[in-house]
């Protein structure tokens, strides 16, 4: 059981960090672009992204499962019931969160700050990285919210991962299983582990976020 717990915890952490990382990779540029561009359809896209922030994990799980199912459009990739399937589903859950919160973080900055930076000779990329640094508190909050949304979700992991022992069992699916079996002690132990894990990751991000804040 002890090695099992270690394995489950590590997989949870790996899958959710991966999904959060990919979400950051997509969400930071996309959210920045949505915040800064003067595109006509910008508000419409933002409303879609904000709806995406409230996507129920089971709905995401359903669509990813249908897509990766052996007879589905991407069935040939044999990804269903693998950790990669969980990462895909969790990325779909976290990316709108990171994108939407990134956009709102940058929209909160004074719009004249962009003019000021350009007026001091910043290139477009220097301007954007300066804005990110200026908005680093809400941006790291966006990252924490993204991680929080996936480390705690169970529906999608269950549906596309299948809760297979030694392969796709993560903390949340294991808790569901143990509770179903009436093994409350195990379920409680796993829950405490999940909370500690979430705490440690957020502690790390908070320390980065609050660095230099007085």
């Amino acid at each position: 059981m002890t090695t099992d717990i270690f394995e489950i915890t590590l997989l949870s952490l790996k899958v959710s960090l991966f999904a959060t990382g990919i979400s950051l990779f997509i969400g930071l540029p996309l959210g920045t672009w949505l915040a800064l561009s003067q595109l006509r359809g910008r508000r419409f896209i933002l409303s879609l992204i904000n709806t995406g922030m409230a996507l129920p994990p089971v709905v995401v799980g359903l669509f990813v499962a249908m897509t990766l199912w052996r007879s589905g459009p991407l069935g040939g990739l044999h990804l269903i019931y693998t950790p990669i399937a969980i990462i895909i589903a969790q990325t779909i859950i976290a990316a709108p969160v990171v994108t939407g919160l990134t956009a709102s973080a940058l929209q909160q900055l004074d719009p004249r700050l962009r003019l000021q930076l350009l007026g001091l000779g910043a290139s477009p990329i220097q301007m954007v990285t300066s804005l990110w640094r200026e908005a680093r508190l809400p941006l790291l909050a966006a990252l924490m919210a993204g991680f929080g949304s996936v480390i705690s979700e169970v529906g999608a992991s269950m549906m596309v991962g299948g809760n297979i022992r030694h392969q796709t069992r993560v903390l949340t699916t294991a808790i569901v299983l143990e509770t179903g079996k009436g093994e409350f002690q195990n379920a409680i132990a796993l829950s405490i582990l999940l909370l500690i894990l979430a705490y440690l990751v957020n502690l790390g991000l908070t320390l980065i976020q609050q660095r230099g804040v007085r």
Partner: protein
Amino acid sequence: MAETILGMRDLVVRRSEQTVLQVGSLDIEQGEVLAVIGPNGAGKSTLLLVLGRLLNPQVGQVYFRGKPIEQEDELTYRRRIALVLQEPLLMHQSVFDNVAAGLKFRGLPRGEVKRRTEEWLKRLDIIHLRNRPAHRLSGGEAQRASLARAFVIQPEVLLLDEPFSALDAPTRTRLLQDLHALLAETSITTVFITHDLDEALLLGDRVAVLLGGVLRQVGRPQDVFTAPSDGEVAAFVGVETVIAGKVAASQNGQIIVEADGLHLEAVGDAPTGTSVLFCLRPEDITLSHADGSIVSSARNHLNGRIMLMTPSGPLVRVVVDCGLPVVALITRGSANEMKLMEGQPVTATFKATAVHLIPR
């Protein structure tokens, strides 16, 4: 004659179908300080953004050293200028890092960044604040940091957008004097935007007047302030007495203007019968007790009664009803010694040469 750094020809900027800026022709010469004045919403900031290449005009052309600015890469052009806005807009970093920002954007070596940043922190008298987080500066300190951040770049053109309008009066006065000295020492070509006439008079080698988005007049401060090109410019630059009249007689450069039954003397060459605006600056009007017989070389003596006295700082603005309202600006000392009060009869005296006639 100095080289022209920036030139504008037939500029039009529109925002949602409305023309917000219209400049026929304006040249800014190497080393000069051009003060752009106008009330709020006159298009002053828009002009600055166009010069900084942060806004493209719909019509017209901006030239840099004789070449259309589009011939040069946008970033290269923007790195020739430095912008200071009304709000200092400092980043959440130390004062040093804020002031060094422009140099870091340009990828200068660390040693040079440090040397130049420290030099300008010293010149703006904020070196002792170098490690302080910028969001904990007072308004005046923050604007000093913002100025240092622009000067340190050693730009070819410095663009200042009302940098002092958010500051309290004593801070503003000190900073204005320091900026005046720095501009004289560095001879950086500067476009300085303000709605404050005193700032324009102090800093500007030349003054441009923008009203309702249109460039109305450009010239030396004394010319703009004493010879405004039209009635609206006159009203804005503080020629408070503007009387509409007709030239009743004109001979040898001496003109008699008739307005509301009064005959006023001025100097000029408008032909008889033309409609004119008769403009007087309040500083040019002398008040005396109506009973005393006045012997002086001044050609115009108008008798009237004091309608209104408004103190402003060391001065008192006195409105005299002489059939027409005439506004005089006198010192508080004069007002006290003469025991002036509202309702009292006085004589307003001014020289024919103090009158500025604008034909209509």
